[in-house]
Structure formats: structure tokens, C-alpha cells
């Protein structure tokens, strides 16, 4: 019996180590896309997959989702090749900078890219056209009752409201944070809650919080019947989305897929904020299949 168990274990070791080694990739024939933590990125990645498979000889592989910083590290060490990110996120979360650093006359996008290529060798390709910025949201009926349209409208009511946001927003460093927001608008919340990012919507749905920090294009804003308030005093910087990749990506693939840049650029300027919200809603709230949603968008826009 002892020998049987032992030999069984040995066999297991061999099978597993073989299957683990089977993953080594032929780097120039295969491109690895990183799934998003949110539907938005996953949808765009799926669009990229469809287009790359259609128009190049590359085989496309997916890597499972991970947090932003982790994603940038994976891009650098070539575990993955393509992702989606935002100029504000890239600068603040990955480069440890701050949107206020961008010099006068230079856009956040250009400043971030210049600095990012220098420091990490990663760049954002081109803007898709939508902005996914932070925003403050309250329940729709609450907004109607109290006649709230803008963030400023919410300030006088804040003493009775519990505000919830993800942990990151409560960090001490940076300007796009809780402290600076309160100071800028003059909020005096009844209480604030530093929440797991996945629990924000259930927190407001269950009335545990009265106002929440959201991403403006999140499909769940509509699903949870939230009113996304206008940032009338422009506290939140813009967060423009684009493909996120090693700056040398097209060089690396110049033999296997010389038209890669051209293919990816087909999405440049093609997705505005309204469209992105709608696509996110279809996946997150209507639970449509990501592939169907991505394909339909590409077909409707004549991109495939």
C-alpha cells in the first residue's frame, strides 16, 4: 500500500510538471492578452483578440486578470503582451506620480507616456476616445428628492451621508484622494468607509453607504440606479483609456505580424464614453457574453 501511494504521488508529480512545462510559448507566433479585473478591459481585450485573430497569423492567448500594478510588472517581464490602462492610472498607481505634476501645456496623456517609456518601457498606444474618470454617485431617487445634479449640490447634505470608496482612495499619498477631495469641495461626511472595491455597489444598494466613489463608465452605475454627479469644480483628472503595452511591442512582432500596430489602431477614437457605458452595462447587468458584445460592436462599426 505504501509503495502504491508513493508511486501514485510520483506519477502525479510527473503529470503536473509536464503540464506546467507545456506552457512555454513560441514568443513570436503567440500574443498574450491580459483579462481585465473589470468588464470594460475584458471587452476591449476581446475586441483585440477578434481583430488580431482575423487579420494576423498570431495565435491569441489569455492570461487571467490581476491588479493594475501586477499587470504592469507582467507586461515588463513579458508574461503578457497587451492590456488596457488609463493615463491617470498609469501615472498615479504605476509610476507613483501625480496628475498635478504634468507641466502646463502638456497633456496628462503625453506627460505620462513620456515618463512611462523612460521609467518602465511601457506606453499607452492611442486614446480609444472614452474617459473613465472617478466620479461621485448617489442613488437616483435620492438625487431627485434633493435636487442634486453636481458634486457641489451634495456638499451641504454631506453631514448626514456615509461615503464609501475603495481602500486606495484613502491612501495618504497623492492628490486624487479622500483628504484632498474633502478639502477641495468642503465635504464634512457623517462617516467614511474604506471598502473592498468589489463591495461598493452592494454597499450602496443595501443603504450601508449613501454616496460612493465610482468609475464613470461602469455599467453597474446604471444597474444600481445611481446618479453620477457632475464634477462641477473639476477635482478629478481625466482618465483616458488606451492599449497598454511594452513600447517595443511592434518591434518584437515585426516579423510575425507586421500589421499589428495598424490592427490595434483601428479602435483609436472609436469608442466614446456613452458607448463604453452601454457595452459595460450589457455585460455586467444584462449578463451578455463578452465575445458577443465585442463582436457586435466591431461588426456595427465595420471593423471586422
Amino acid at each position, binding site marked *: *500500500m*505504501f509503495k502504491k*501511494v508513493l508511486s501514485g*504521488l510520483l506519477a*502525479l*508529480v510527473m503529470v*503536473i510538471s509536464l*503540464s*506546467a512545462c507545456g506552457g512555454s510559448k513560441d514568443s513570436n507566433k503567440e500574443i498574450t492578452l491580459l483579462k481585465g*479585473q*473589470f*468588464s470594460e478591459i475584458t471587452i476591449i481585450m476581446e475586441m483585440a483578440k477578434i481583430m488580431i485573430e482575423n487579420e494576423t497569423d498570431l495565435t491569441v492567448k489569455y*492570461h*487571467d*486578470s*490581476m*491588479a493594475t*500594478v*501586477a*499587470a504592469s*510588472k*507582467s507586461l515588463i*517581464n513579458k*508574461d503578457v503582451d497587451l492590456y488596457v490602462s488609463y493615463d491617470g492610472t498609469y501615472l498615479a498607481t504605476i509610476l507613483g506620480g501625480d496628475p498635478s505634476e504634468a507641466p502646463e501645456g502638456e497633456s496628462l496623456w503625453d506627460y505620462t507616456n513620456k515618463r512611462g517609456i523612460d521609467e518602465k518601457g511601457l506606453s499607452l498606444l492611442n486614446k480609444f476616445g472614452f474617459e473613465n474618470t472617478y466620479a461621485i454617485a448617489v442613488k437616483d431617487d435620492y438625487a431627485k428628492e434633493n435636487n442634486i445634479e453636481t458634486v457641489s449640490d451634495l456638499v451641504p447634505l454631506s453631514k448626514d451621508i456615509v461615503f464609501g470608496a475603495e481602500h486606495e482612495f484613502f491612501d495618504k499619498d497623492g492628490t486624487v484622494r479622500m483628504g484632498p477631495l474633502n478639502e477641495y469641495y468642503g465635504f464634512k461626511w457623517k462617516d467614511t468607509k474604506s471598502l473592498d*472595491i*468589489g*463591495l461598493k*455597489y*452592494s454597499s450602496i*444598494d443595501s443603504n450601508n453607504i449613501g454616496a460612493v466613489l465610482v468609475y464613470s463608465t461602469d455599467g*453597474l452605475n446604471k*444597474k444600481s440606479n445611481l446618479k453620477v454627479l457632475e464634477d462641477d469644480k473639476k477635482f478629478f483628472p481625466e482618465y483616458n483609456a488606451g492599449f497598454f503595452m511594452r513600447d517595443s511591442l511592434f518591434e518584437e512582432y515585426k516579423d510575425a505580424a507586421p500589421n499589428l500596430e495598424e490592427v490595434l489602431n483601428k479602435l483609436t477614437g472609436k469608442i466614446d464614453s456613452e458607448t463604453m457605458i452601454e457595452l459595460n452595462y450589457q455585460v*455586467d*447587468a444584462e*449578463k451578455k457574453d463578452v465575445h458577443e458584445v465585442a463582436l457586435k460592436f466591431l461588426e456595427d462599426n465595420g471593423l471586422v
Partner: protein
Amino acid sequence: MALQNLIEHIQLVLISFVFTGIVGLILGIVGYNFKKVRGIILMIVDVLQTIPVLALLGIIMIFFGPTFTTVVIGIVLYSLLPVVRNTIVGLEQIDPAIIEAATGMGMGKFQRLVKVEFPLAFPVIFTGLKIAVVTSIGIGVFGAVVGGGGLGSTINTAIRIQDGSVLFQATLALVIMSLVFDFVMTLVERRLDYNRK
């Protein structure tokens, strides 16, 4: 629910299991043979368990990046304790008379370990392995935070979009996985115990 995440989770558990077994056995055997380091080894594996899983993964991520490897290392470090402890206990409780008999038959230290001591201690060691596997299924859920995939990804998404049915399925899958591993290994455990008697 994505089947792929389920498969990933099983892979995570199995690969970690193999490494936990190898590392745990080596540490256990070293601890058994060298009484001086035993205290240190047991203390280290004990302390490892006191670090919150999430923090442990976060720290390993600094060195190995957001990869499958990070999660496997985290699981292995976290589940070493029962294997190491049971290896030492299992080897210790062997009747000294048997060991003497083996020495009397002219066996060297290594030969004795492989042919006599290890087989006799194996049932106890196996119980340690069982505890380690069941623990690792739960720890694997945290893997999604550092890019390790698995059912943690499914659960995170389901919680975010409040998809109760997917959340339920994924949780059920975890529970069933634990029960199956526990059941199968308990069967083996009983067989081993029976054989010993």
C-alpha cells in the same frame, strides 16, 4: 461559472501539494535527525502561519511578481506546518526496538530511514498532507488578488456584479472540492492505518 477557473484552482492545489510534500518531508526529516534545528524549523513554520494570507502573498509578490508561482509559494509556506509536524511526530513515535533491530541487521542510517522508519511513519505523515491540501483550497481563493487566477477570480467578479448564482456555484465548487479531497484522502488514510495494524 468559468470552467477554466475551476481547472486552474485544481492545478494550483495539486502543484502546491507536491511542493508542500517535498519541502515538508525534507524539513521534517532534518528536524527529526538533528534535534538542534528541530526547534528552529518548527518555530519558522509556526510563525509563517501567523502571517495573514493576503499579506504573505503581497510580500512574496515583491520577489516573484504577480504570477502563479507567487500563489504556489504562498500556499506551500502556509501549509507546511501540518506536514513538518506530522513527519517529526510520525518518525518519533516509532518503537526504538524496531530501529535497533534494523541497525542490528546492518542497515545504514539512510537505508533505515527509507526502508523502515519512513514507511512506518507514513500514515501520520499522510494525515498532515491531508490537512495541508484542504487548507490550500481555501488559500487559493486569495490567489486572484495577485494574478494567480483560480476560483478567486470568479468569486471576486461575482461579488462585484452581485451575481448570486455564480457566487453560489463557485462557493459550492470549493466546498465540493474540499469534501472530495478530504474523502479520498481519508479513505487512503484508513487503508494505511489498517495495513499498519
